[in-house]
């Protein structure tokens, strides 16, 4: 193992042994100890040693190094979903901190390897990212930095328009129904002797032909059903130059790689915290180290009035699940019991907890995790509330402590990563080759200025006007951009 001093190597070995004993299952994990500036750099590149050149990495680096300099922020650990897993430890951390991080990392690796939502991710992503870097660098040499960077910015501006479920969907082409209903032509009611005049046969025939043609046309409609993977659709159908298509494809691939991490933030951090805490307090640490650990651990678990801390939420939910399944506090009998005292002291001594949490880490993502395991008791214990902006008092206020409201709000924030859902509806809108997108409005409007700019970027890719069906202040609207001018039309 390169990059680790011998004493650290021994610690890693020991913790790895413990991690395996409790049932964690991970790829080979390679640790490296780096100084803070290297750590900041790696973090700016989202964990990857080699990526393509882009100013936003520089921006991220500047943020990280400034906040490190002023003691606002310190990155303890970085771990990459890859086979083998790579993890970076910060040089100069105390030994207790390092132990905590190492245990934390092993649990992350276990999660990457076993959680189903990661099943479709590229496990050789370090190589892939380096390849992207090389390809984009070559493009820059040929096309010039400015051109490539501009187009990358365009691609990045739509890199949230992906469908996290698409890697798992296998669509069979539905063969068109052989005995389709024949096309019906509506007739105007008439007395039999007037029939020929009111409904002339040749007109009816022409109308039938027209409708048939329409039906045929609808079959050829692109896309046949709305497509949420807007990026993928554009890679396939937009009139791009080969190098542009490459760039778009690479940005898309990277977006898909990172998506499961966004989908499982609470679970992943919860899982890692659950195990670092259990391994360290139960196995690794000596009595002398416990207080230091507790100090650091509690800092990580800090709660905030305006944001849920995924580490804490995840950890406490896993602990709650373990406890409930140990006690047998689940299922019909438990759910139907309204006796609070009985519920609290419920204990069937099933000891199913450990098995249950391993199952949970395998098949759930944050949305299903919260939906299934967030209970009213838990929310009350955690003193959760919903908050929002009150236009009447023009300040942010606590809205509600109702369980339903809290759960709905968390789920809403998690749905589609808290991003608006956008679909491609029609690639040949008005038969003019315009792109029609649809925003499924779920109560919150889009930010108009950013929306406009994004539409302009889409025009750059589609090379024809782009429309977005949305809702602005309860009114249906179509946003239209033709590359030079933006218009809001009634929808």
């Amino acid at each position: 193992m390169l990059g680790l001093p011998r004493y650290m190597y021994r610690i890693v070995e020991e913790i790895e042994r413990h991690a395996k004993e409790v049932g964690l299952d991970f790829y080979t994990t390679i640790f490296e100890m780096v100084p803070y500036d290297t750590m900041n750099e790696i973090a700016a590149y989202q964990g990857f040693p080699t990526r393509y050149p882009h100013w936003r990495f520089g921006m991220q680096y500047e943020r990280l190094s400034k906040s490190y300099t002023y003691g606002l922020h310190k990155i303890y650990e970085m771990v990459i979903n890859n086979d083998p897993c790579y993890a970076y430890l910060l040089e100069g951390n105390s030994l207790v901190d390092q132990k905590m991080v190492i245990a934390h990392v092993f649990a992350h690796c276990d999660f990457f390897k076993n959680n189903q939502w990661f099943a479709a991710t590229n496990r050789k992503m370090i190589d892939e990212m380096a390849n992207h870097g090389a390809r984009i660098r070559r493009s820059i040499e040929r096309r010039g930095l400015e051109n490539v960077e501009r187009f990358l910015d365009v691609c990045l501006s739509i890199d949230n328009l992906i469908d996290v479920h698409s890697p798992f969907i296998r669509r069979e082409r539905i063969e068109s129904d052989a005995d389709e209903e024949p096309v019906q032509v509506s007739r105007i009611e008439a007395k039999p002797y007037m029939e020929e005049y009111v409904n002339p046969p040749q007109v009816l025939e022409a109308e039938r032909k027209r409708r048939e043609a329409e039906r045929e046309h609808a079959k050829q409609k692109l896309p046949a059903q709305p497509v949420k993977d807007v990026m993928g659709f554009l890679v396939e159908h937009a009139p791009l130059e080969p190098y542009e298509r490459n760039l778009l494809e690479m940005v898309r691939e990277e977006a898909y790689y990172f998506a499961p991490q966004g989908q499982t933030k609470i679970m992943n951090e919860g899982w890692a915290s659950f195990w670092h805490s259990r391994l360290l307090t139960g196995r690794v640490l000596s009595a002398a180290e416990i207080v230091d650990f507790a100090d650091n651990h509690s800092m990580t678990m800090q709660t905030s009035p305006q944001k849920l801390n995924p580490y804490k939420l995840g950890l406490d939910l896993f602990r709650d699940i373990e406890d409930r399944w140990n006690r047998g506090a689940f299922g019909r009998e438990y759910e139907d019991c309204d006796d609070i005292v009985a519920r609290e002291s419920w204990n069937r001594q099933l000891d199913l907890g450990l098995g249950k949490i391993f199952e949970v880490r395998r098949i759930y993502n944050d949305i299903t995790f919260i939906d299934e395991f967030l209970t009213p008791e838990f929310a009350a214990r955690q003193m959760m509330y919903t908050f929002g902006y009150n236009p009447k008092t023009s300040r942010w206020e606590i809205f509600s402590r109702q369980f339903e409201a809290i759960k709905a709000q968390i789920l809403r924030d998690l749905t589609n990563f808290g991003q608006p859902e956008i679909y491609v509806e029609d690639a040949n809108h008005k038969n003019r080759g315009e792109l029609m997108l649809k925003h499924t409005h779920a109560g919150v409007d889009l930010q108009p200025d950013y929306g406009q700019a994004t539409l302009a970027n889409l025009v750059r890719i589609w090379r024809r006007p782009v429309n977005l069906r949305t809702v602005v202040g309860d009114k249906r609207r179509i946003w239209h951009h033709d590359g030079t001018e933006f218009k809001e039309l009634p929808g």
Partner: protein
Amino acid sequence: MAEKIRRDQGRFREIVRGTVRKNLKKYISRGEMIGQQGKKQVRIPMPQIDIPNFRFGQREQGGVGQGEGEEGQPLSPGEEGDGPGGGKAGKDPSEHELDVEVELEELAQILGEELELPKILPKGQRRIRAASDKYTGIARIGPESLRHFRRTYREALKRQIASGVYDPQRPMVIPFKEDLRYRSWKEDVQPQSNAVIVYMMDVSGSMGEEQKEIVRIESFWIDAWLRSQYKGIESRYIIHDADAREVDRETFFRTKESGGTLISSAYRLCLQILTKDYPADEWNIYPFHFSDGDNWSPDDTRKCLKLLEDELLPRANVFCYGQVYSPYGSGRFLKDLRGHFDDHETLILSEIRNRDAIIGSIKDFLGKGK
């Protein structure tokens, strides 16, 4: 490794400064973080560029939080939660007075967004050598005349060995298109180091504390900005009342003097310095002179005009004269200069009425790209 991130960071700074990609300017937000320095709380500037995307309007969103509080109770405006690892962010900024802390270089850059650099002319031997392109790099594309024979074949050999095609018995190395390597140049971005700035300040009795302060502030910023742009720039400082003397930077910004005013003394000393150390054919010369415009006698003013016309203006790329408004001074000198030189190409005049006018005056001097 470090070089890559430096390049990305450099690119980001260029964009923020507005020297490239001007269309991104509207997405730059000058965010800041609250930090701690000793016991003081400081704001740390944190410029950020947003890549626009479809997102929800901010105000309408809410969230879930944890903690005490009744329904309807306002949340204290605080920063977003901590990132991974849970650092210690400064809490409750409203409780403390905030000090604005900005890095000098950063401010100079912000200033620079509004300004153009003075054009430094190619003068002297040093410059010519510094700007030459050096063929030290290797590129994958280039003209055939620059093909690097050995590197090309080495790449081909590497590829053949890697793909198992190479046969040591019959060593035949045939480069493909991908193997081709070309000599490539690197532009030496070493900034020109042959510019000199001579700062002259009137410290006579008619210049009050406020006037001196204005001059100090202005010349400090001009100095800070030019230094941030041209590493290795040389600066000389002259203060004068009835007599001129050269001082170091410290003294220039600190000194308190009083007495009469003979502007020509400063110009003469400036000329001495220039003839001795900075021949005009090898140096870009930028003299700045600040005064309240109150010269001792018309006679001396005539001397000044003559010195300017015959000696200083021909040598200087541009001569900048800034006149600070003073209740005691006559402000005559500016009028005399205007009358005599009327729109001279290399003479820039600026009037500084008060502190608020400083930024405008700096723009007068540096905003023309001369």
